[in-house]
């Protein structure tokens, strides 16, 4: 009722991908949990001008409370699962594809809304004018992925997503479909069969990444169309494809604040911003920090089945831990030898896991063995050499470093790959000296 009566219409740039509208009081989307409407303060007339309250007047259960404030909840928990997902690559960054300038260039997310029967066009696949059905559609793969200028990794989901789009376009319209790809990556159960099905349905696959999408026609046939200029790498020729509609299959990116998230939860992330797992193959849902787990795209691009599997695995892992009376911990820990500790507290602030506390009574630092991850930072930092790591004596570590930096008869390091190329000369000189 409140959403029906609210007089303020707002462009929904989140769920409707900028193609549809919502009210200033709205439920984020139909399947939202909890399914309670929220008020968008920035756009609500009441917050702007102090009058309106239409929603309040019509609410039968008196549920509208204009004085509600954001609340920050502090919870004590033993385990955390990070499932913060991804951001979509902003296709505006690739100006050569004209997104935002050429009306009939759409992003994958926009197309999802277009093809959804509950979406802004009730599932009619139409051009930006809202009425015309396209007679030809081009789907561009790898927009912002596998691209040195943007993200060099493969976003994993776009090939299958693009094939799905082709299928939907075929189902809803009579359009000819072109897929522009670098490589088709359809590994997965039933995936390649789907690819073959789209080919049988008549999808045209062009191997090449479009250089440009333009509305500048060179021939009368191109008039009024969007033209994709592409090097067809199978034919070895430059080709031009005039189409009515283009869908950009944008890649996946880490959330904009992914690095801040990593710092806050004491986990590490790659240079791109994807969270790093404890072990990429053998423990892909745990992190190096005990009790912090990752599921889904926070640790890298992945499709729905993989995300669901990770989510379930992480939940099961946490449930198992909650029900345990005892915990198995890694055996590698650091210990403070109290008789050598001067009580300088340097190690207290160095510990990335907050496992070291200061014992005021005895004037020494002590390590909480349940929290210690055995990283060795405090061992190296202690000026008195009062902390040792179990299984790693200083002599062992130093011997390993020496082995790594060993120089052969030719004066060159034997294991050059062990350290960055930029430092080869420097390190070799230091070792020789």
């Amino acid at each position, binding site marked *: 009722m409140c959403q029906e009566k609210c007089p303020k219409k707002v462009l929904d740039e989140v769920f409707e991908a*900028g193609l549809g509208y919502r009210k200033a009081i709205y439920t984020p989307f139909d399947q939202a949990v909890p399914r309670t409407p929220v008020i968008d303060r920035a756009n609500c007339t009441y917050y702007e001008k102090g009058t309106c309250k239409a929603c309040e007047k019509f609410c039968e259960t008196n549920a509208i409370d204009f004085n509600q404030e954001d609340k920050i909840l502090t919870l004590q928990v033993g385990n955390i699962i990070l499932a913060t997902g991804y951001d979509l690559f902003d296709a*505006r960054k690739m100006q050569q594809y004209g997104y935002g300038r050429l009306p009939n260039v759409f*992003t994958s997310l926009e197309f999802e809304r277009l093809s959804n029967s509950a979406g*802004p066009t009730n599932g009619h696949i139409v051009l*930006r004018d*809202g009425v015309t059905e396209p007679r030809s559609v081009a789907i561009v793969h790898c927009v912002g992925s596998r691209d040195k200028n943007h993200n060099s990794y493969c976003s994993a989901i776009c090939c299958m997503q693009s094939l799905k789009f082709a299928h939907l376009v075929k189902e809803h319209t009579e359009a000819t479909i072109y897929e522009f790809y670098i490589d088709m990556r359809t590994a997965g159960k039933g995936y390649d069969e789907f690819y073959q099905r789209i080919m049988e349905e008549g999808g045209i696959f062009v191997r090449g990444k479009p250089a440009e999408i*333009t509305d500048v026609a060179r021939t009368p046939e191109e008039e009024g169309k969007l033209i994709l200029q592409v090097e067809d790498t199978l034919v070895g020729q430059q080709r031009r494809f005039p189409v009515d509609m283009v869908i950009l299959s944008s890649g996946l990116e880490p959330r904009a604040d992914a690095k801040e998230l990593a710092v806050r939860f004491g986990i590490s992330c790659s240079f791109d911003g994807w969270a790093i797992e404890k072990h990429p193959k053998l423990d892909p849902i745990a992190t190096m920090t005990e009790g912090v787990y990752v599921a889904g795209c926070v640790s890298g691009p992945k499709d729905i089945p993989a995300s669901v599997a990770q989510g379930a695995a992480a939940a099961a892992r946490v449930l198992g831990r909650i029900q345990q009376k005892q915990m198995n911990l890694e055996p590698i820990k650091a210990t403070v030898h109290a008789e050598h500790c001067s009580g300088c507290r340097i190690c207290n602030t160095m510990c990335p896991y907050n496992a070291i506390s200061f014992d005021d009574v005895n004037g020494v630092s002590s390590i909480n063995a349940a929290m210690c991850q055995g990283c060795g930072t405090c061992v190296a930092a202690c000026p008195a050499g009062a902390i040792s790591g179990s299984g790693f004596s200083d002599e062992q570590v130093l011997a390993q470093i020496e082995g790594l930096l060993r120089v052969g008869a030719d004066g060159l390091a034997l294991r050059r790959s062990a350290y960055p190329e930029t430092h080869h000369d420097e390190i070799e000189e230091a070792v020789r000296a």
Partner: protein
Amino acid sequence: MTNYLYYPGCSMEGSGRSYRESLEGICEPLGITFEEIDDWNCCGATEYVSLSTTPAYAMIARNLAIAAGERKGTEPLVAACSACYLNLAKTDHYMGQQPALNARVNDALGAGGLHYDPGTIKVRHLLEVILNDVGLDRVKAAVKKPLTGLKVAPYLGCMVPRPDVDGAYTNHEQPNDLDRLLRALGADVVDYPLKTECCGGHMTQVAPKVGLELIRRLVAEAERREAVMMVTVCPMCQINIDAYQGEMNAMFHTHYKMPIVFFTQLMAVAFGLEPGKAGVGREYTNAKKTLVAALKAAPELALAAAGAAPAHKPRPDKRALPMPRMTDSEVEE
């Protein structure tokens, strides 16, 4: 007054005379001065570097060495011609990147008692200096005769926003730098997606069919987008589109008459200079008539625009889907 070192290059003396004349006309209103470097030589244009690298780079570096020697402070070296800008910037960049080239070039320079350390002097293009140092506010403040209603197609050519080794331009495919500048003069800038396409370069000499086709595309698109004039930053683009338009028309049996002027010419005219004094009229496809007519109509158009109720954009069809919102840097003021 901010002073810059200035490398004119050959075209400013010849085919691009109107560029030089108009540049002189905009310095004072913008509060900048240019000091021509002494005894400069050819920049190698587009040919020499592809024939023989060391002599070409040595020849270009001679200009850099002279400029570095004449510098009083940290002022950069400004070139108005895109080819000169690119060659000077490229030489500085490659000398810094390739120690072997640096040694060979400096060996050659040494014969003339000169030396140049890459990175000493910053090479910049006039357009970028006006946008980033002078700023659009100052440009707007200097406008006395706004070019209201003058429909122009902004055309940069290939050598200004790319390769952009210093990252001075944010956008290399569809840069809006020249658009913003022309808009500040009051002009009506049309969306011209071919702004960084090739003007044909020296194809007009070696393969006229190719060169003339490239020119045809540019001119045809400007006309299709209802521009009455093209505006460029590059003497090479200007001469190609201007001087070869007749030949192009003959080849394709077309009748295009699209004048092309330098952006500084429109700036000078908007700042109050007589079109003739800004070099307008030197083109083969004369721009004077169009420009004078536009100047005459401009005050009335401006008045009408000011008097009319705030312009309501034609209401889009209710069924139409909204366009994506652009981020702030892409939105033009």
